[in-house]
């Protein structure tokens, strides 16, 4: 569980986050949605500790991040898996070495143990037999799945995803979404997912936080987002005709 209280962050006098309160629950996919420039990425980077907030606290399982010692911060980072927008695979390493990297860095396992764990997660993301390929030799969707495998290989307690399905075809996007949701339930992970893909919002949005201009404008679930009459939300979520029709159909039921 990650509790965020009264979070403020500004860059050069410009306020990006203006007092955010939110709780990310364990074992659920917590989505952050919002327009470009609404502060989603800054919010995520604050939680990861890449940015230092100006005011407010971020507590991991009840313990505020600011009270962590350097050693504790490092320990925490080992429990965090992060899926970057572009995958951020190390392109000088093979798929197998990429996934093995966190294990090699932080555990004292033997090579054979690491290899069997790598095979296990590769199987979990349906990529058996690609271990020897370089990241540049596989498709975008496969790279994303390798990145997921790398993020979960060390059994993280927290999983952060920055637009996991941007630039993917609808089918692969759904596969990735479902994979993230299944992994979250299986391993009881606190998953935080930034997205502006409305498909994933309606598909896996167990908890949704809507950011607008640096404040939390709305929160709810995917069922509630169909019913809400809050105009800022409907403006954003149902900005396309198609989703407008989906919503109308849903409300008639």
């Amino acid at each position, binding site marked *: 569980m990650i509790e965020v209280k009264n979070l403020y962050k500004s860059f050069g006098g410009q306020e990006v986050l203006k007092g955010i309160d939110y709780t990310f629950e364990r074992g659920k996919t917590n989505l952050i949605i919002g327009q470009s420039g609404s502060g989603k990425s800054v919010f995520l980077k604050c939680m990861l500790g890449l940015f230092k907030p100006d005011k407010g606290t971020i507590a991991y399982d009840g313990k505020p991040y600011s009270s962590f010692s350097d050693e504790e911060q490092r320990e925490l*980072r080992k429990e965090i898996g992060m899926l970057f927008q572009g995958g*951020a*695979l190390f*392109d000088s390493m093979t798929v197998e070495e990429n996934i093995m990297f966190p294990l*090699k*860095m932080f555990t004292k396992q033997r090579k054979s143990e690491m290899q069997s764990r790598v095979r296990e997660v590769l199987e979990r993301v349906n990529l058996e037999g690609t271990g020897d390929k370089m990241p540049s030799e596989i498709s975008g969707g496969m790279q994303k799945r390798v990145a997921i495998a790398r993020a979960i290989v060390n059994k993280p307690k927290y999983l*952060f995803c920055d637009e996991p399905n941007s630039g993917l075809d609808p089918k692969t996007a759904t596969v990735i979404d479902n994979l993230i949701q299944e992994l979250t339930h299986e391993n009881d992970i606190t998953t935080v997912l930034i997205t502006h893909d409305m498909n994933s919002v309606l598909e896996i949005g167990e908890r949704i936080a809507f950011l607008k201009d640096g404040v939390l404008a709305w929160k709810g679930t995917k069922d509630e987002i169909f019913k809400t009459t809050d105009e800022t939300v409907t403006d954003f979520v149902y900005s396309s005709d198609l989703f407008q029709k989906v919503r109308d159909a849903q409300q008639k039921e």
Partner: protein
Amino acid sequence: MTYLHSIGEYFLMLKGVFGRMTKGSVLRNLILKEINDLIMGSMGIVAFLSFFIGAVVAIQTALNLNNPLIPKSLVAYAARQSVILEFSPTFISIIMAGKVGSFITSSIGSMRVTEQIDALEVMGINSKNYLIFPKVIAMLTYPFVISISMFLGIAGAYTAAVLGGFVTSDQFITGLQDEFIPFHLTYAFLKTILFAFILATVPAYHGYYMKGGALEVGQAATTSFVWTSVVLIVTNYLVTQLLLS
């Protein structure tokens, strides 16, 4: 102001580079890989350039010393001094700023652009140490490159001077041993070590702190070459002033 900021940032980066160390076994592999990429990969061009620069120095000296009062052996003396004092350590380092430097900037820069550095940081790895420290250590073997360059430079001078018929082999060997001051080698290798450190860290700084996309990686590599050369030349001037005058 921006220069002051950059200089400060550079030294803060160095603090990070020698800060919390990456796991030893991983670091060892990285260092070996960097030695292969940075040092072994440059051997060919260094050997080629050194040989021909030495040869040209010998020909130029021979052609320009027409006065019969000046002994022919001076050709070898001039070639030895210029190769050992400047051509090998400084000239080759400038070439390396182009080859090794732009390689370091673009490899670190593209990792920055594709968020690989963020990925390292999120995993709790000291990315400065992980990326730059192995390069600094690999560059400690750079003096070996320079000594090979010195040898080949003088060999080139000998080849050109003797085969070109400017001096006899005996005259060249005599000139080569003329008034040799061992301290000149100490000076040359001392500055080589300084250059090696600059060659590893200045381009790394430009790559590590770059912002933008693929186009900016190219720009960063160019800027990095310019600044590495400037820093090399200024360092060369200061060290020469301090040690030789």
